[in-house]
């Protein structure tokens, strides 16, 4: 049988990947910039982090390089979207192609590297003993999982309770109003797109240096950048809801992998056992689910007029008429 605790614990671990990427995207979008390049930034971060860790034997160095790699790509999008006022959807898609392409080239031959030193796993002393929660959240988790735990309240606090967060929200909702109050719209947008890139790079490194170490080409991220973008809408741009969604999806992903190893359920042969064609159907489900969530989520956002930052995707030009 399947051990639920283990699935949930592994789900939290793989949910951390989605968490970083989604919260990064939330920052960028709350500032009014849509960046659809998450998948590319993640993959580029993943390969950069992995190859540095493989070459130096230092996963921490790999982690830093991964974040910088994601950040670097995001600045490209920032220049296109903020300075050149390009269509953000197109620019973001281009970024995904670019990141994926770069990762393929750089990753050539990396899949045979095999094991590299990964980031440490920790068990939190007392908390790990709490029934139910302990084994799921605090036992033998990667340090990055704990970073994720801390990032969520930090992001909520930053956005809702601080002056920089107030400025962030103003820039994404009504940049002209922020500008009239002396807030530097362009600088803040650059900054938060960069934050999004750093976190996407971190998400990539979370895969290759912590959760499932190794390089598997495009399959390393396997579309999870897109799921993170879906989560942002599902979460209505709230880091807390994004975290819940991320862990939920993490668990679903995990469950899909685990169920493939089970030969029979309640005496019936498992139709999803590895090797059977139904497996593909199963693996498709999270993505289908994201589409449904995005459709429902955005309808909901439209209907209740909540959620999406009002200036999302719209370049800002001081004093332009008719906006």
């Amino acid at each position, binding site marked *: 049988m399947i051990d639920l605790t283990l699935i949930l614990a592994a789900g939290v671990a793989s949910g951390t990947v989605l968490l970083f990427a989604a919260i990064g995207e939330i920052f960028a979008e709350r500032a009014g910039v849509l960046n659809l390049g998450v998948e590319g930034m993640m993959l580029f971060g993943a390969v950069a982090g992995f190859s540095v860790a493989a070459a130096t034997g230092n996963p921490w160095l790999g982690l830093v390089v991964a974040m910088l790699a994601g950040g670097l790509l995001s600045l490209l999008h920032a220049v296109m979207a903020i300075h050149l006022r390009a269509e953000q959807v197109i620019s973001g898609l281009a970024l995904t192609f670019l990141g994926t392409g770069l990762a393929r080239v750089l990753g050539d031959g990396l899949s045979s590297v095999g094991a590299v030193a990964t980031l440490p796993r920790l068990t939190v002393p007392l908390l790990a003993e709490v029934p139910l929660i302990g084994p799921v959240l605090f036992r033998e988790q990667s340090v990055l999982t704990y970073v994720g735990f801390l990032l969520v309240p930090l992001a909520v606090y930053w956005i809702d309770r601080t002056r*920089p967060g107030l*400025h962030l929200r*103003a820039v994404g*909702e009504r940049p002209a*109003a922020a500008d009239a*109050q*002396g807030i530097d719209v362009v600088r803040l947008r650059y900054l938060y797109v960069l934050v999004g890139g750093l976190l996407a790079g971190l998400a990539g490194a979370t895969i290759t240096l912590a959760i499932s170490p190794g390089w598997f080409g495009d399959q390393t991220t396997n579309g999870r950048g897109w799921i993170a973008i879906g989560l942002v809408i599902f979460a209505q741009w709230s880091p807390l809801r994004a975290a819940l969604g991320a862990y939920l999806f993490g668990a679903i992903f995990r469950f899909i992998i685990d169920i493939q190893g089970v030969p029979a359920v309640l005496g019936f042969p498992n139709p999803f056992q590895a090797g059977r064609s139904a497996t593909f159907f199963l693996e498709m489900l999270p993505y289908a689910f994201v589409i449904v969530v995005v459709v429902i989520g955005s309808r909901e956002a439209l209907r209740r007029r909540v959620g999406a930052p009002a200036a999302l995707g719209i370049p800002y030009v*001081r004093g332009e*008429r008719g906006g």
Partner: protein
Amino acid sequence: MAGPQGTQPRTSTPLAIEAVGIVKSFPGVIANDHVDFDLRVGEIHALLGENGAGKSTLMNVLAGLYRPDEGEIRVGGEPVQLRSPRDAIAAGIGMVHQHFALVPSQTVAENVLLGLDRPRFRLDLKRTEAEIMSLATDIGLRVEPSARIWQLSIGEQQRVEIVKMLFHGARILILDEPTAVLAPQETAELFENLRALTDAARSIIFISHKLGEVLSIADRITVMRAGKVTAAGLEPEGVTRADLARRMVGRPVLESLERTKVEPGAVVLSVEDVTALNDRGLPALRGVSLQVHAGEIVGIAAVAGNGQSELAQVITGLRACTGRVVVDGRDIAAGPVRAAIESGVGHVPEDRAGVGSAPNLSLIDNLIMRRFRQQPITRGPFLDASAARSKAQTLQGAYEISAPTLDTPVRILSGGNLQRLILAREIDAAPRLLVAVQPTRGLDVGAIEGIHQLLLDLREQGAAILLISEELEELLALADRILVMYEGQVTTAVERPSAADIDAIGLHMMGGEGADSAIDRASTVG
């Protein structure tokens, strides 16, 4: 053209702020051409000028939003460099922009904090709210610090803007067309507040297109045209409305137009017991019935938010409703927008940039939007570009739309020109019924004259016109009949309205009790 004729500042009243020789150009226009302007401590100095004269540009320079190409700004006699709005705020200058600069999803307190350097990091909204409350009560402005901006009426939002400036320590207040969006009673309240502020040694620059208002509130008046000052520091005692209008526009303006007698014809529009919801899902129209005849202008008077916008949307097919909307005998209530268009309903919407035009498309595209399905502009599945261009050319000439070229995106047009374009398109389609919402909001006297003339001409040609306006003077000048709407219902009808009815109509717009007795010819509509 009248030359600058400045009155020397009395040495007894010090100057709060002074702009000397300001030059600011944008690609293709010199918006400010060596402009001098000064404001005395404790005065209300009105700035007048036609659309595009450069008023907002000058004020944006004073508020630190635009850097002038040339010129100097002095605050309290000292030259200052205003590199950003923050510098201006620090120098005690605050501006309420023509289009409010508030973040709708945030609270009043959050909006007030936006322009400040404090707190350092953590927001303490409770404390800020208390501080705003005490400041607001000190000066007698009513605000609710924890309310979100989108929940507030326009008048309330304006009070928030004023409180925000004062909270930032502004002693020089710039109000760019503050009354353009206010109901008469709200305007009166604003004026009381402004007087209280000047009594407390604040100085105010006040921009408006409404000459009557300017004459009643201003201590001095400066007029701009085409980037230059044409009259500086006039005392209101010495000038008349006609004077001011002539100085603004450069020619005499007829403020009241000739209205020929037109015998109303058959019923064109009949709205029967219509109910509809607003954007937030609350009832906006609660059983509205009205009729408009051919050759008749029916005015709707209402304070913003009483269902008049929704009424226009229902009639033009943009909002779902129950009940019947009959145009020339055909019920279009259930139908798509196209049913309304095909029944000959023209629409001059309230939101000119969002609904009335496509800002990034050219004059041509915007002008043919209503005709693109008809010959000769359409040919089979194709548009005939040269036919479209010649159509646009004719309209541009006939309606005097000034624009660099026909291919210019319409977002570049001034408010008056954009409105002429929309009217040109709608009137050219020869509507049976024209629904015009706030057609002259924010326009200068010259532009208003032109648009009123267009509406009167259309009426003479036998079209039915439903005119929705918060401007009572406009309704009185044009309408054959005025209906007052309050909270989603037509509460009163006034036949052949005259200036004597203004106060009573105003009272009805506010839902006032006992207003009925004030209107002689009024009949309450069931």
